[in-house]
């Protein structure tokens, strides 16, 4: 296979991303020694941000296995490359497990717990060993599912085994159940327990929806770049983007729906055990960020996507999706950084951490894309689109 301009291009991006990742990580390391509390807060936010497209890819592939649809075949390989990053994310979680718990979670301090009846009650769940065991279990489940999906898909691609397809389908049903449950509890552990008195039963689902949204947006952005090149320009059609645009809109609406429901219920209840969480996030200088989320995580994308032509135009859709993807970080920042009533602040690490982890994530993502047909040959034949599956 001769190197194509696209392939060279991707290779360059991969190398640059890796470099950005390494340099950024080194910078963060310095930050970790100067201000560990800030470092772990920034790091956790960036980690949760990039966990989004990793697990979202897994979830959407499993969902697509159940529902089918041309939009899914179009972006399937991108999603597979995304979920291949589960081990990477597992690795990136190790620093938090080893050194971060004490900096992130007040329930990990014996003296705080001793003075707090509520934390004593929760200690059966919120304690270091159990927290670690749960984290390991989550990653084991995710890695197993991702591994199974990639392997079965490869078997199907190579030998056109219908059995593999059927197996994939049956794993997907149960896999989705496992994913939603584990991700919910991971959200409780990693995000919600930063303010250990507070609780909200919908919190896990907001994370799940956010991950799906992040994944779809990233897939649209990548697909729109690829679609500028032969032979992908023949592979991606306006109707794929239209369908993806509809899905993005559905997820944007779902996110807004859940976030608003949570807000309205807590606002109306106005209970001292719940309301402070919002007071931390719509006061102390954070209100501008909250409004930014309303505008750019919901209102603007929603209004643009209501337009039918906008969804069929790759360029417009890609811009909107890129915007939402950035806002995903803004939302996680808004969830994590104000924890405990901290006033508004942005550290340089809040900017560097997502870029550094992103560099690593993207370079591994491209590595997962390259060397394998970017389009499943079977899907391509099935849809009568391409004679041979293009390899990068």
């Amino acid at each position, binding site marked *: 296979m001769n190197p194509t301009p696209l392939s060279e291009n991707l290779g360059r991006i991969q190398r640059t991303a890796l470099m950005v990742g390494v340099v950024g990580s080194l910078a963060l390391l310095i930050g970790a020694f100067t201000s560990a509390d800030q470092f772990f807060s920034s790091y956790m936010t960036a980690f949760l941000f990039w966990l989004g497209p990793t697990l979202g890819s897994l979830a959407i592939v499993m969902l697509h296995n159940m529902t089918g649809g041309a939009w899914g075949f179009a972006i399937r390989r991108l999603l597979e490359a995304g979920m291949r990053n589960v081990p990477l994310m597992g690795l990136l979680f190790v620093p938090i497990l080893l050194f971060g718990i004490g900096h992130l979670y007040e329930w990990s301090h014996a003296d705080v717990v001793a003075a707090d009846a509520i934390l004593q009650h929760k200690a059966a769940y919120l304690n270091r060993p159990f927290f670690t065991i749960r984290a390991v279990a989550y990653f084991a489940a995710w890695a197993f599912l991702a591994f199974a999906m990639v392997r079965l898909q490869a078997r199907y691609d190579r030998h056109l085994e219908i059995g593999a397809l059927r197996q994939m389908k049956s794993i997907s049903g149960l896999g989705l159940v496992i994913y939603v449950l584990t991700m919910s509890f991971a959200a409780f552990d990693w995000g919600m327990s930063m303010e250990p008195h507070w609780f909200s039963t919908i919190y896990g689902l907001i994370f799940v929806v956010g991950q799906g949204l992040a994944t779809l947006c990233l897939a649209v952005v990548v697909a729109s770049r690829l679609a500028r090149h032969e032979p992908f320009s023949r592979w991606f059609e306006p109707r794929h983007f239209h369908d993806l645009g509809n899905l993005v809109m559905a997820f944007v609406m779902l996110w807004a729906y859940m976030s*608003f429901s949570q*807000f*309205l219920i807590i*606002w*109306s209840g*106005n209970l001292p055990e719940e309301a402070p969480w919002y007071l931390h996030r719509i006061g102390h200088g954070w209100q501008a960020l909250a409004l930014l989320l309303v505008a750019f995580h919901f209102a603007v994308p929603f209004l643009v996507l209501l337009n*039918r032509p906008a969804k069929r135009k790759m360029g417009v859709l890609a811009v909107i999706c890129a915007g939402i993807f950035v806002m995903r970080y803004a939302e996680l920042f808004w969830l994590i950084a104000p924890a405990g009533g901290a006033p508004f602040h942005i550290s340089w690490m809040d900017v560097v951490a997502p870029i550094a982890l992103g560099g690593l994530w993207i370079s591994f993502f491209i590595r997962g894309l390259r060397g394998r047909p970017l389009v499943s040959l079977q899907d391509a034949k099935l849809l009568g689109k391409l004679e041979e599956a293009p390899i990068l």
Partner: protein
Amino acid sequence: MKRRPKSGDSFGFLAEFAGTEELLEAIHACKAAGHTRMEAYTPMPVHEVWDALGHKSHLPKLVLGGGITGGILGFGMQYFASVIHYPINVGGRPLNSWPSFIIITFEMTILFAALTAVFGMLLLNGLPRPHHPVFDVEEFEEASQSRFFLLVPWYDPSFDHDKVPALLESLSPLSLNEVHHP
């Protein structure tokens, strides 16, 4: 400008076809002959037919307008009642309890948009209209069941009382009828 038609004047010619394909062929043939204002009748929605005839509705814009009107009215009503007309402290909630007002605002948006969609569609279609000259053609009963019809009406700019039936006849329709003004 054509003169005003009288009762019994020709309303146009109505040809009957068995399927979409035949109807589309006929539309293209008539278009080639210079007819621009034809009307087709089908037992179900067929995109190709209205694309061939070049129809495109403005309904979505109307519905958007209806929705925005409903939303503004919805929120306005609640704001007026709770803040201006009868301000009263309820459970310490602010007078302008906007989080609570969003639900009814949303419902009113949907309601107005839906009403606009339905009544806008009927109005633009000129319905209800109990009688139309094509109903006088006996075969037209099948238009709501299994047959496809093409009407070249009198108001078409290149309508010609002799050439139109000849043209339609050449397309071998299942039936061909002249429609009259009632």
